[in-house]
């Protein structure tokens, strides 16, 4: 049985009083890839960031409604945001490795979570790098600076860094948009593999990418969730004209 990992109910988000998300209710299933698509400014990244309270860092943001993860509203007052972000990891458009060694990039999160045993850290680093499909490329140079890796490798390193703290959900905000086709293909393959272990939510401007890797697709426009369905349905026979116009490039 497929469970809903994330369930938002009548969610509104305002930036300094201006509505950016309008009444979003969506159920995101566990261990599936869910893609958010829509034109720039439609609210898809804002919505993604609200799933691990990254918008808390922006002044003037006000959120109404509920964002339930495993049936708990993450905007309840007693929620520990640090723990939430361990559970709901995030990968950004631009890879952002620390100016440290490859090993230290991965070990950093577990260390600040109190793991100091070298043997345990070694295991975490190896598992995370293997799960991010970069272990074979870096296993002989774990002490080298992460900044010496290629863009595609840096992005997979950042995914490994996210996985190292053992999240349940991984949010990805255009993770391959700055990469060449080969690196993009590796990231896409990785995402499809990762869904066996994690719930993945990805924002992408590349509709073919959404079509290739996601199980479900949500189309956002002007802060509203216009249509949400199986990816195959969205890309062959969407119900809403706005969705059809957007994915076929007819949108003005």
């Amino acid at each position, binding site marked *: 049985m497929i469970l809903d990992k994330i369930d938002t109910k009548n969610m509104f988000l305002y930036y300094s009083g201006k509505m950016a998300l309008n009444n979003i209710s969506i159920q995101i299933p566990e261990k599936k890839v869910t893609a958010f698509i829509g034109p720039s400014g439609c609210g898809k990244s804002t919505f993604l960031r609200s799933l691990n309270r990254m918008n808390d860092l922006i002044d003037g943001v006000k959120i109404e409604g509920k964002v339930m993860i495993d049936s708990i509203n993450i905007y309840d007052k007693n929620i520990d945001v640090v723990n939430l972000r361990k559970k709901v990891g995030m990968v950004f458009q631009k890879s952002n490795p620390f100016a440290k060694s490859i090993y230290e990039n991965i070990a950093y999160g577990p260390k600040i979570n109190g793991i100091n045993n070298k043997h345990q850290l070694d295991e975490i680093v190896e598992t995370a790098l293997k799960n991010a499909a970069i272990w074979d490329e870096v296993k002989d140079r774990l002490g080298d600076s992460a900044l010496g890796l290629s863009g595609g490798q840096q992005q997979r390193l950042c995914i490994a860094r996210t996985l190292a703290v053992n999240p349940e959900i991984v949010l990805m905000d255009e993770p391959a948009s700055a990469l060449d086709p080969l690196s993009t293909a590796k990231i896409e393959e990785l995402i499809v593999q990762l869904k066996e272990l994690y719930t993945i939510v990805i924002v992408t401007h590349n509709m073919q990418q959404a079509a290739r890797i996601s199980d479900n697709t949500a189309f956002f426009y002007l802060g509203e969730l216009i249509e949400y369905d199986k990816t195959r349905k969205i*890309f062959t026979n969407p119900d809403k004209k706005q969705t059809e116009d957007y994915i076929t490039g007819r949108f*003005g």
Partner: protein
Amino acid sequence: MENYRIFDSELDKLAHKVIQMCSQVNQQIIDVVLALKTADLVIAKKVIINDEYINNLDVKIDKLCQKIFALQQPVASDLRYIISALKINNDLERIGDHAVSIAKRIEPLQDYLQLVEDLGIEVIGIKTTDLFSDVVELVKTHDLAFAEQIMSKAAELKDECKSVAATILTEMMQQSEVVVVAANILIITNLFERISGYSTNIAESITFVVNGEIVKHKKHIENN
């Protein structure tokens, strides 16, 4: 607010070629039915020669579809249209081939025009012409009322072909001297029946373009 997309011109070109193919095939049907009625070998020859034009158009449409798939990665209604254009093109090409097969069987019927008429092949031919003119309209307009009409007319025509085939078989058993020519007429009847089947396919493809619904085999599936 709609944008004109670079590949709209390719889609327009494809739609134009499919309609062109449809019109050519329609003319082939009109001609072959006329040739059959009058045993006119000149018209029959014309049908055989014109098939090359249809075959060329078939290849052009295939190539254009391949190009759009490869370069434009169509989705949604565009995707459904191109998938259907390929299938419709294939059905039209087969109908064209059947018109040629009929044309090639006209010569031996020259001395048996009365038998052709008596067995009802002429009526089958006229009904096929009528059916296919609806197909042309449907491909031009995507009006689903025509699709329904075609599916029902094609089913009727199919039944009539079966009934005519049964009459021919009876005739063959009763009159041994007409066995050879009757066998020829039987094959022609079967070819008209196949044309009605392809017309149904085209109506189903257009239904898929318009509403994304796969209607082929539906009755069969529902009955099982």
